[in-house]
């Protein structure tokens, strides 16, 4: 190759690399200006006070001091978010796996059913929140009507302090179809030989489920667990629509992102809201790291536990 006369000054690989950067260019520019820049700005703002009208004022760790020691609502919102996550995530996973198992059967109608289960995840958050508001209506909603057929007097749901969070959790379950698709793919990726080998050894259905299906699904469940927790911590749209942005009644549905929104756009404390946002990030980070740490104990990759 050295005898070939050099036409371009650039080597083939360098040229390809340049093309790569050129194509990446728009995305990188977008990332830097629209995501990176604001992230850096919010880090700085977390240590400032800013009301949008006058210039930001540096206040050091004041925002965090206030958050931890003088703001009971911060802890309330953190608790509300935890409560929602602790129930919604496990129930969501169990629900999605269950539905995926059902949808993995060889029925004629299974394709239609899969679509039906998936539809709720593609509806707009606001629209579905409004529909659920009607369903939860204490006097005319279908849920309390259904309960009344069994002789049970339904609670006030969104108007009750005790039942508002359970209402949100029930509502989140209608989107199991979204994760069902992922589990379905996971189920279909389990090698058939494993089941056949188990059959030869005389394993029953429960046995097969416990020792083949679940372990082979653990990577998918792990991925889903992390994504669900990250997502649940950030719940906002439904709460905002269903409680009119108040987090009521009496702050029972004041989740952390709603609290951030209130501070940023209602009270115009941009600095404090930025501080809260970073706290949310740190909390989610801690949970994610914890999950990775303990993954070795239960996640099986390719039939082997990842140590």
């Amino acid at each position: 190759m050295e005898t070939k006369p050099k036409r371009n000054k650039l080597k083939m690989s360098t040229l390809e690399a340049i093309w790569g950067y050129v194509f990446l260019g728009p995305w990188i520019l977008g990332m830097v200006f629209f995501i990176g820049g604001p992230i850096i700005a919010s880090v700085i703002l977390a240590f400032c006070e800013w009301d949008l009208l006058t210039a930001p004022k540096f206040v050091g760790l004041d925002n965090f001091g206030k958050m931890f020691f003088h703001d009971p609502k911060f802890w309330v919102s953190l608790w509300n978010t935890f409560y929602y996550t602790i129930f919604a995530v496990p129930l969501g996973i169990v629900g999605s796996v269950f539905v995926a198992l059902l949808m993995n059967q060889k029925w004629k109608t299974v394709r239609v059913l899969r679509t039906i289960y998936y539809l709720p995840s593609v509806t707009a958050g606001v629209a579905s929140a409004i529909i659920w508001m009607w369903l939860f209506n204490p006097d005319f909603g279908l849920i309390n009507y259904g309960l009344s057929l069994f002789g049970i007097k339904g609670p006030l749901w969104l108007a009750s302090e005790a039942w508002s969070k359970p209402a949100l959790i029930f509502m989140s379950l209608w989107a199991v179809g979204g994760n069902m698709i992922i589990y379905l793919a996971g189920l279909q990726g389990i090698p058939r030989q494993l089941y056949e080998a188990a059959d030869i050894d005389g394993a029953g259905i429960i046995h097969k489920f416990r020792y083949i299906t679940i372990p082979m699904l653990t990577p998918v469940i792990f991925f889903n667990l992390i994504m669900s927790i990250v997502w649940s911590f950030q719940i906002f749209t439904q709460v905002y629509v269903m409680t009119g942005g108040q987090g009521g009644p009496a702050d029972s549905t004041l989740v952390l992102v709603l609290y951030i929104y209130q501070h940023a756009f209602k009270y115009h404390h941009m600095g404090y809201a930025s501080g809260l946002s970073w706290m949310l990030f740190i909390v989610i980070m801690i949970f994610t790291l914890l999950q990775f740490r303990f993954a070795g104990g239960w996640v099986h990759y390719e039939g082997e536990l990842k140590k």
Partner: protein
Amino acid sequence: MKKFLLVLLAVSLLALGGCGEKAGGSAKSLRFMYWGDVAEIKIIKAQIAKFEKATGVKVSAERAPSGPPYMEKVLTQFAGGAAPDVLFVEVNNFKQFAQKGVLENLNPYLAKETKFKKSDFYSRIIDRFTVGKNLYVLPRDIAPICVVYYNKKIFDAAGVRYPTDDWSWNDLIKIGKKLTKKDEKGRITRFGFVDDWPIWEAFVFSNGGRIVDNTKNPTRCVMDRKAVIDAVQYRADLIHKHRVMPSPSQMTAMGGMGTQDMFMSERVGMFFSGIWKTPSFRKITNFKWDVVMFPKGPKGERGFPSGGSGYAITSKCPNKEMAWKLVTYLAGEEGQKKLAQTGLAQPAMKNIAKSKYFLDDKPPKHKDIVLDGVKYAHFMPLMSNWEEINVSMLAPEFDKIWSGKSSAKTILKKVVPEINENFFE
């Protein structure tokens, strides 16, 4: 090589193309931001057209939805250095701007103005928009929240005489009870009285209570005094003791129907709000209604919260003389006359409010009550943190009172020291 350069050019053009419009107005154009419903938009557009014709200066008027979205939009523009030149402001969102130095002092312009002078306006609204010695907003309307709309048909059917202005809180209870109707299951199908939103301030002011020690320079919240506690408890009693007003859960149970819809669909006999509901009610045919002033408190006193709005010029506006001229077109006599005719708002200029532009023979017949109402108008504390206090501390705690879970005394004795500690140190 050529292809490479072309792509580079395309990418850099894309990046530059994202740059937005130049901020602010210039000598030949003004930017104006406002909110309003259909009737107001028509009037504003007509006045702007006149202004453009008379001066040759283009006005780009931007309308934003009223309430929190308006403030969000305006504040974002301020933060981005692209604040409008003329701004529509009302008595409550004024507190965000009041002490920040972002609005222009209008006194010098008003002094030079030949078409009207400061004393033409109601002094209370001028005072509200004044900080220190500077007037920052030229008022367009004042809205004492003292209007109790009542459905004449319901009154006639129940055999109750129409209330007169000197009725008392006890009369309110008695009349409310007579208008309330229940069905066979004991569920209330028609209530006697409802307020547009929990207007507890009206009860507090009518009972001689106060919210803070000094509206313009608050240093303490004084809502734990007996007058305030009794007033708030009275409103809660209307819901739970006398059952003439719906509770929050009964409101939720009406499935999205608001208080105004309740009045319009005859689910309530009396509706308490400000005069701005007039255009909507005028549109309903076969609806006989009138208004009466909110009743006197137990000590014979009157007091109500008040709204009001006007126009301000931002301090960074490059062409303030022209901006002032636009303001005179919008808030001057002609603009106010047109507004008065829609019945939507009470003009801030005293003689227009008293004239037949406002006091015409369209319903409600007794709309002159709002002219009297001005003397008893109070405003909310002028501090930028009041929104936070209201939304984060008062509203959720008051929720407990309105839903009957706690008494006014317990809640106020608990929350007022917290407010004082967190916001007034």
